[in-house]
């Protein structure tokens, strides 16, 4: 049974100093089991200036069991899946303790953005990118799906994180993804994005196209429908 009184206290505690920490948690439903958190990208990293949204689901045993957290905002990071936002972090698994809170967990995610743990990668693509194509320009999100397909054809056991072997490439890609998916203007665009999504265009394509045409919905649509 989730301790709702505690969750309530956690939310008010966290949101009280949101101006200092930049970390916010709001309920997604009225029963407090489904929340969403936002963290600012750490300054001095490729994530700077971005706002990252995280989906939070509280399991039955909370706070004895860890909250389930997943990035909703797409992010390029060795410990975060670029496909579904799944996070590889010990405190969200066996190192969770009831002494931790949702806020401290989000702070840990922010710390993870500043200091990736390359020995424990979640995203094989980010980890393998350099290994397979030694000369890479920052990766465009649109190329990503194709590349992922190519990469997944090759099964490689050696983890060689891109960010360690070729930090500039890694940082360039991470910054590009931050620009495209995590900047406030792309978040402010939610309505336009939603409309285009409903027309059946893929999300990555919609966001990048909108960005290319300066958030003009009509122009984006024209660009999306060739001919």
């Amino acid at each position, binding site marked *: 049974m989730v301790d709702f009184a505690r969750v309530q206290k956690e939310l008010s505690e966290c949101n009280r100093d949101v101006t200092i920490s930049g970390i916010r948690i709001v309920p997604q439903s009225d029963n407090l089991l489904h929340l969403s958190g936002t963290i600012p990208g750490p300054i001095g990293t490729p994530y700077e200036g971005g706002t990252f949204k995280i989906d939070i689901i509280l399991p039955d045993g909370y706070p004895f069991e860890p909250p389930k957290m997943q990035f909703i905002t797409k992010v390029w990071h060795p410990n975060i899946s670029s496909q579904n936002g799944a996070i590889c972090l010990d405190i969200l698994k066996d190192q969770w*303790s*009831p*002494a931790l*809170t949702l806020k401290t967990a989000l702070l840990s995610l922010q710390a993870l953005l500043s200091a990736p743990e390359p020995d424990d990668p979640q995203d094989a693509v980010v980890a393998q990118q350099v290994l397979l194509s030694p000369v890479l320009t920052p990766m465009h999100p649109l190329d990503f799906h194709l590349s992922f397909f190519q990469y997944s054809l090759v099964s490689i056991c050696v983890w060689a994180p891109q960010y360690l072997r070729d930090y500039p490439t890694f940082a360039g890609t991470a910054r590009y993804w931050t620009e495209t998916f995590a900047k406030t203007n792309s978040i402010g665009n939610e309505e336009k994005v939603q409309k285009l999504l409903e027309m059946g265009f893929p999300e990555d394509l919609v966001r990048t196209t909108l960005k290319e045409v300066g958030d003009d919905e009509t122009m984006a649509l024209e660009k999306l429908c060739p001919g």
Partner: protein
Amino acid sequence: MYSRRAGAVVWNLSFSHPLNDWEVGDFASLLTLLESVVVTESVRDRRVWASNSSGRFYVKAYLEEANPGGIVAFPTQLEPLSALAAEYQSGSRLARKNKGLFLCVSVHVLGEEYAAIRRTRGDGNCFFRSFMFSYLEHILDSQDKAEVDRITAHVEQCKKTLQSLGYADFTFEDFFALFLEQLESVLQGSGNSISHDELVTRSRDQSTTDYVVMFFRFVTSGEIRRRSEFFEPFIMGLTNSTVEQFCKSAVEPMGEESDHVHIIALSDALGVPIRVLYLDRSSCDTGGVSVNHHDFIPASGDPHNAAGGSSDTINPIITLLYRPGHYDILYPK
């Protein structure tokens, strides 16, 4: 999972982590069990252990099916120490691991001083579970109001320690409140006092005990951090990690096993003397038929315990039996 090599079935089992010494015995019995399995390849595969209605598999459901007589509830009822001796003779799980005629002798030596044993759940929280039951039982039996007042003052002090270390109140207050509630309930005449049977029942309740275990983990962590200079060398010797890392990874998460560092910290923080008897291979080093024990006497300088001074004048409130990876409660004669 399995392959055939020269007509014989070979099982390819993979592990998510290296085997712990207490798991070796279990693994050996699994292999023995697998040996008896005849695989008929012409028959289609099917699930034997069905999922429940929501499509999930539960170990608990399986256990219930496999043990129609019921699962042993922890803490167990009091068992005479001869049960422990019998366990070693019949070569049960723990005993096989400890391989031992010598231990057999040790158990008999143990029997000269101790009358009974109460087993606790082996889920990595067993030290704290044993401490909880043993302490509450002591208060229930002794009705020592002065002791309750003393420990309550210590608990208050622990709360201040956590606050000064920067823990937000709401992270620990529920756990503290639940422990104090349990403490009050074992004192008779408080209105909601409970019987011994009820203490056993309550100690089997997952939710209540998890809260109390977490209370102890907070107290232990707070004490280690408060006196980090004192604990640092112990921790470095044990895990080669910093005090901060140790508290975060080995004290505060549920299910992390307790070592002497945890015992010293909890004993000091709450001012409760603890005796631990060690029944492991190290007992062999003594050469004779004795069982090693260690008394954890709360650090001096403590106003509540200053009277003692020499360690043999302090009677441990709690006596635990340690076998590698597990603590149970012992009852002196």
